[in-house]
């Protein structure tokens, strides 16, 4: 038998009908994550065509994108301010009731960002195919799942048939050797990777992240890396499951139990690329050379090391357009640039370890005057765990706001936005124009860098602030 990549193994196990010259493969989907923004029109199609949800037991539904983070709004003490968002919430409640889907709704302690709760509940498992009407579905690839974002039409396809029509993508191995230095996080690593291969470098590929620096990462760090695969154009990013993966999953609500657990682990151990397996493309990165990274432009490939300068590129109108939007000049150092907003959260960096990292920087310090800092846990469970550790107190004592979970200022749909012209150091994943509010200027960075900026009131090297 020929040597296979991790991707090929998962793909082949899920072909209901293999692809041919005329038709794409019919690919079986093990887990379908559903949220309020990209699903209403899909349920409308089911209704119009008089179709049922084929496997409601394979659907995990929650609300996160347009939901409020203010506790009074979340728990119904006051109406949700954004009326259209309130309608979406109601619509998802209705759709889940009507089609027999369990909803982790606003009143549930299991609610959160869909890519945070899937792993947290143990629904995300090695070797599964996982889809969601959200491009950051790539996050779940951290467990050795084949996980990718789909559009609303395809959400309808999966609801009705539990399958998708897919052409087989190419494979890209990103080999990360060496060891990350202190103060350099998984977020810095993935920003550096995107800077290296470019925002369309992964288009048409599924990435497999591998090598010693990847193996050394915790599950939460692996999720941060895989999460931003789409920012390099790749629909999916995968990491082979190992002892770290199994230890994370054991005992979680949807993880196999007892004998089934042992069988699952035995099966999962086979999910790694065979020696000699061929990738369509291979890229190597030395982790030990990396610094904390920060974005300066209007896409996630426009990044520099924190000690770097805004690149000076002559005769490039698109580069000039980006710098004009950002209010930055070529040649200007990043460190020292005043900022007004700090956002800690999102499916990229809204998990417990991210909050711990930020709290470690903030402990005993104050958010600079004139800076508004928002800390939004990735899920209600993350929120509870953080509160048990007293992290909420560290944040609020420092002058930051502590909210209920959701996508919040990563996408700015719920009213959590930065104002026109404001600089927001954000642990989220996209610095596109207007992403965090019309005219807002996003600087993507790690939770440590974001917390350091909050204290300094300007872009700062987090390594000066980290506890020893």
């Amino acid at each position: 038998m020929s040597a296979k990549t991790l991707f090929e193994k998962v793909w082949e196990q899920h072909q209901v009908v293999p692809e041919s010259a005329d038709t794409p493969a019919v690919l079986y989907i093990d887990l379908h994550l559903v949220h309020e923004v990209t699903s209403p029109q899909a349920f409308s199609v089911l209704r119009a065509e008089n179709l049922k949800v084929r496997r409601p037991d394979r659907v995990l539904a929650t609300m996160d994108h347009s939901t409020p983070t203010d506790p009074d709004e979340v728990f119904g003490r006051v109406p949700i301010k954004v009326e259209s968002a309130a309608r979406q919430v109601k619509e998802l409640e209705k759709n889940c009731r009507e089609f027999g889907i369990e909803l982790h709704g606003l009143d549930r302690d299991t609610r959160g960002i869909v890519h945070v709760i899937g792993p947290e509940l143990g629904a995300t498992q090695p070797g599964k195919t996982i889809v969601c009407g959200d491009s950051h579905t790539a996050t779940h690839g951290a467990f050795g799942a084949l996980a990718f974002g789909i559009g609303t039409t395809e959400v309808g396809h999966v609801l009705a048939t539990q399958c998708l029509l897919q052409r087989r993508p190419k494979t890209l191995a990103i080999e990360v050797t060496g060891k990350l230095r202190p103060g350099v996080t998984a977020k810095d690593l993935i920003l550096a990777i995107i800077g290296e291969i470019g925002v369309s470098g992964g288009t048409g590929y599924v990435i497999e992240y591998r090598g010693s620096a990847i193996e050394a990462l915790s599950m939460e760090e692996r999720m941060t890396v895989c999460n931003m695969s789409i920012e390099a154009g790749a629909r999916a990013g995968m990491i082979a499951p190992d002892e770290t993966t199994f230890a994370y999953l054991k005992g979680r609500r949807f993880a196999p139990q007892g004998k089934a657990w042992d069988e699952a682990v035995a099966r999962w151990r086979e999910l790694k690329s065979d020696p000699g397996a061929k990738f369509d493309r291979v890229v190597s990165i030395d982790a030990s050379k990396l610094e904390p990274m920060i974005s300066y432009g209007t896409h996630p490939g426009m990044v520099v090391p924190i000690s770097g300068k805004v690149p000076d590129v002559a005769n490039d109108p698109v580069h000039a357009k980006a710098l004009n939007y950002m209010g930055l000049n070529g040649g200007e150092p990043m460190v020292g640039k005043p900022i007004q907003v700090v956002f800690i959260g999102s499916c990229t960096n809204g998990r417990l370890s991210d909050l711990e990292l930020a709290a470690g920087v903030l402990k005993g310090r104050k958010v600079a005057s004139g800076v508004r800092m928002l800390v939004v846990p990735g899920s209600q469970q993350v929120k509870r765990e953080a509160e048990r550790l007293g992290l909420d107190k560290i944040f609020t004592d420092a002058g930051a706001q502590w909210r209920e979970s959701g996508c919040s200022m990563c996408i700015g749909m719920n009213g959590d936005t930065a104002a026109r012209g404001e600089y927001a150091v954000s642990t989220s994943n996209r610095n596109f124009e207007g992403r965090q509010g019309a005219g807002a200027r996003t600087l993507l960075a790690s939770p440590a860098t974001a917390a350091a900026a909050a204290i300094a009131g300007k872009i700062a090297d987090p390594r000066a602030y980290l506890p020893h």
Partner: protein
Amino acid sequence: MQPIRTIESRTVVIPVTNIDTDQIIPARFLTTTTREGLGKQAFADWRYDANGAVKSDFILNKPEVAGCGVLVAGRNFGCGSSREHAPWALLDYGFRAVISTEIADIFRNNSLKNGLLPIVVDDQTHGWLMNNPGANVKIDLETTTLTLPTCATAKFPIEGFARVCLMNGVDELGFLLQQAPAIERYEAARTY
């Protein structure tokens, strides 16, 4: 969906690379529960200023582009999110095809499912289109050929099954539903 064989229209050129879905349709407009009416919000932050006034220097606000159904844009069009609202907005605005040298995966998939043609062409053809805004082009789905007013032609790649669906005006869902026996066999054979 209406069958699509050929599209003939003048082009609008937005000479920007990496146009992401947040530009095509900003997230604050995604709280809708229908597919309709998003055209007025397409490229909203490039078309309107902070007070909602029309930015007269943006190409889509110029009178000469009225009726142009083909959008020509820089490399890596449609990157970013999976929101299908992006092709819905472009179609509702009046575009029927997008031409670039590279189109992001999810956006391309979403476009094919809605009858917005994602056309990837070579650098030379793209360069000509970028330099000749308003050119009348013809896109033939049957022969997968783009024809310029100079009579120069360029072949474009398009996934075969999606192409057949577009040409016949049928939805892929029908095909998937017909796979029910194979799906049942697959589910029955899975041991975990």
